Every structure is written in C-alpha cells, then in structure tokens.
C-alpha cells in the first residue's frame, strides 16, 4: 500500500460568508498524477492554496505526508498561476530559481554549492539554462512559467502543485511539458489544475472535477454525473480516440 501524499478531510473554505469550497474529501497517493478541472471560480486555486498551506481552511483538516502543510519541511513545490508579473523586477532567472532553495535552516546563510547544483539541475530540466543570466522581465510568458516550475523543482519537493501551468506556454512546448511532468511522477506526487482536458486525458492518472464540491472517484474516468454536478449543465463527452472532445448538448 503506497503512502498517502495528501489527505483532505471535510474541508470547507469561506471568504467572509461566501462558501468557496464545501466538504472536500480527497486522498492522493504517493506518486499519483492528479488533474483537477472545473469551471472558473469553482475553487481550484483555493484548493491548491489550502494544500500548499497558504490558506487555512475554515473547517476540516489537511495533511501532506501525514503532517499539516505548514509543518512539512521542504515537501511542497508550488507553481502559482502566472499573475500580472512585475516585469521590471531586478532579478535574473538564476536569482529567481535559487529562491527555491530557501528554507528555515539556511536563513542568513549564503547559498551552498549543493543549492547551486540543484538550481542548475532544475533549470536544465526546463531547458532554460541558456537564459540563466537574463533578467526575469525579458522572458516571454511561457518562459517565465518554466522558470517558476524550475524554482519549484529546485526545492526538491515530494509534492508538486501546479496552477494552470500551460496557460501561457506555447502549443509547441505543450506536449513536451506534459511528457516531462509524466517523467517526474516517478519521483514525486503531482497535482495539476488545468483547463487542458486533452492533455489531462492523455497524461494524468486520475481526474477530479471541482465546483465548490469535489467530484472524484479515484480514477481517470469522468462520469456524466460528475460533469453534470461540476458544470451545472448537461454536457456530453464524446471521445474520438484522443483528444477528448466536450460538446454541450443543446
């Protein structure tokens, strides 16, 4: 029986009095590759933040490898959604990736050789070692996203959380990116929030649907009922091999 990487029990999150997540139960096994889909505003980012320990749930408990997320050391690699970046921030790609090596135990100490090796390794993994000394603001959206992935990998996480990682990665790199994640899963547990259903159906092991409540049957199948519940409208899933197509019924 593999270890439990993430265990979420009866988690609810309210912002003021608005319910964003309701009664979430989720178990993710070690080395699982889980995809989470759902409509915009369905709470996908919130759930990821709860797992990352950035947000304390109003109710319920979250455990990452048996510990509350804010107590687990160096386990989580978080790749945030590419928000409006500060394009003039004076840091190079190298500076940014190195911040992934920070933790409580190397406070006020300089980066070690091991830190630098791990950061370089992570940059090579996303094939950006050539842009090491470029200012972060000069990169394209897709490149910046890969820098953020490298930064998360540099922490050598056991749980990688990705929020819409392919939103600004260009199509050509898309496939490569997913194949790379697929390789990573032998080393870590991966949870990815995405809209890219075709990629999900091809690469991930398990899919969950989220719209305030989580619909998940620990498999790759999305049943018609799950879709109905999550998207609140009748949808048909027509699979012509790959990729899957989702067509609304009118």
């Amino acid at each position, binding site marked *: 029986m593999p270890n439990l990487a993430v265990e979420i029990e009866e988690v609810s999150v309210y912002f003021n009095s608005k319910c964003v997540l309701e009664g979430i139960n989720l178990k993710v096994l070690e080395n699982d590759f889980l995809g989470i889909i759902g409509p915009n505003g369905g709470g996908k980012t919130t759930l990821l933040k709860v797992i*990352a*320990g*950035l947000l304390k749930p109003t109710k319920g408990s979250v455990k990452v490898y048996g510990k509350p997320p*804010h107590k687990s*050391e*160096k386990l*989580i690699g*978080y790749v*945030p959604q590419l928000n409006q970046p*500060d394009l*003039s*921030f*004076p*840091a*190079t790609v190298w*500076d*940014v990736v*190195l*911040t*992934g090596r*920070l*933790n*409580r135990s190397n*406070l*006020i100490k*300089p*980066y070690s050789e091991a830190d630098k090796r791990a950061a370089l390794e992570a940059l090579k993994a996303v094939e950006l070692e050539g842009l090491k000394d470029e*200012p972060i603001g000069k990169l394209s959206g897709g490149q910046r996203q890969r820098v953020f992935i490298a*930064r998360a990998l540099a*922490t050598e996480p056991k749980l990688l959380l990705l929020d819409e990682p392919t939103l600004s990665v260009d199509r050509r790199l898309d496939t490569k990116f997913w194949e790379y994640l697929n390789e990573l899963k032998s080393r870590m547990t991966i949870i990815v929030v995405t809209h890219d259903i075709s990629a999900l159906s091809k690469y991930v092991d398990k899919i969950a649907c989220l719209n305030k409540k989580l619909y998940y049957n620990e498999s790759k199948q999305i049943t018609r009922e799950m879709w109905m519940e999550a998207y609140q409208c009748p949808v048909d899933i027509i699979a012509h091999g790959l990729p899957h197509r989702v067509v609304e019924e009118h």
Partner: protein
Amino acid sequence: MLEVLQYEFIRNAVFTALLASVACGIIGVYVVVNRIVFLSDGISHAAFGGIGLGYFLGSNPIYAAITFAVAVAVGVGATSKKLGAREDTVIGVIWALGMAVGIILIKLTPGYVPDLFSYLFGNILTVPRSDLIVMLVLDLILVLTVALLFKELLAISFDREFAQTLRLPVNLIYYILLTLVALTVVMLIRVVGVILVMALLTIPAAVSEIFTKRLIHMMFGAAALSLLFTLLGLWLSYLTNLPSGATIVLLASAVYFSTLLYNRCAKRK
C-alpha cells in the same frame, strides 16, 4: 570650489550626503520594488509626531523620531491585519495623525522652537556632528541586516506567496524591512525634510532600475545617484542661494523624468 570644504558645516554636509546615500541606495530599492512608497511616505510624516515629542520632552528629536517611525512601520501592518482595515487607508490616517501630534506638541513646547523648518524641508547644512554618529550607526545596522537577509528579502520582494510555501518567516522579515525603512526615513528627514523624503528614497532607485538587472547592482547605482543628487544639488543651492532640500529634489526629479523619456525613446528604436 574645494576651499568651501574648510568650513566644518560643509564637511558635515558632505558626510551627511554620503551616509544618507548608503541608506537610500539600499532601502530605496526595496521601497520601490515592494511598492511601499506610500507606506514610507506615511512613516516619514508620522515621524514628524516624534520630532514634536522630542522637542516637548527637551531631548534630541532624532531619537523620538526613530521610535515613532518604527512604531508606525510595524503598527500599520498589524492594524490593517488585526482590525481588517485597508492598509492604504490606515497609512493615510496615521500620516495625518503623526503631523497633527507633532504640531500640537510643538505648540505646547515652551519657548522658541529653533529649527522646525529644517525638519519639514530639511537643511543638510545644519546637521551637527552628533547626528552624523547616529547616522553612521544606522547605516551599519542597515548594511549588516540586509547583508544577512539578502536572499530572503529578495524572495519575499519578488513573490511573497511562494516564500510562504517555503515556510520562511515571511511576516517577520517584512516587519524587519519596514523597520529598516523607518530608520532610513528618519535619516533622510535630516537631509531633505519630512516633505521631501520620498524624493531621495524613490528617485535614485527608480533611475537605477532602468539601467540594472539585478537587485545588488540596482543598490549600488541608487546609492551613487543619491550621492550625486545631494552633492550636486547642494552645490547648485550654494550658487543660486536657494534652499538646499528643494534644490536637491528639483535636480533629482529632472533626472528622473529625463531618464523616463530617454528610456521610452530607446525602446522605440
């Protein structure tokens, strides 16, 4: 030109410019990249309350100003977090409150208050030797703290949420940064005054940012520019017999807008 250096007050002014520029270079960069310009300005105005208190108690106003500024820096963050108010509103209120307290305390102080005007608009030519020593100590504290926490400060300035996922004491580091900002602001009040502090905290950093791509380089650039602005501004004010603080700010602003224009044109090409 060099013969003016024989006067002690001129020498002190040059040392003040040098010490203030070290602080501007380092802390100005954090103020600009963390977008806490408004908070810093609030701190500088609130520090005026401390200056009033210093006069009222009959002690050196710089100590009371330091205490006030640090209390405000940490207090604003805590107030907005604990009481759930918007941070920029709290800053606006504390800004006005600090000024009001300062004015009332000065009014209540018996006798003549000698150089109030120099705290409002600054007068680099009246900085006494004792203040130079205070500034030197503050500079040492700044340089040491930033040297020790450089990588952590970079991480939280760039992406605070990610730093939090690394279990770094993000809030503590942020409060340390705000305290450093408060110390710097008090130091700058001496040079350009409460009203014009922001010019020296933001302009050298903003100009330097255009020409540099790493935080550390931006700091050196900002410190050099700050020194250039203060000394050149001082010299211009000496030539024209205009107030030194305002002349320094005029010069710095002129360079700032020219650089923005230059940068715009350079990008178009």
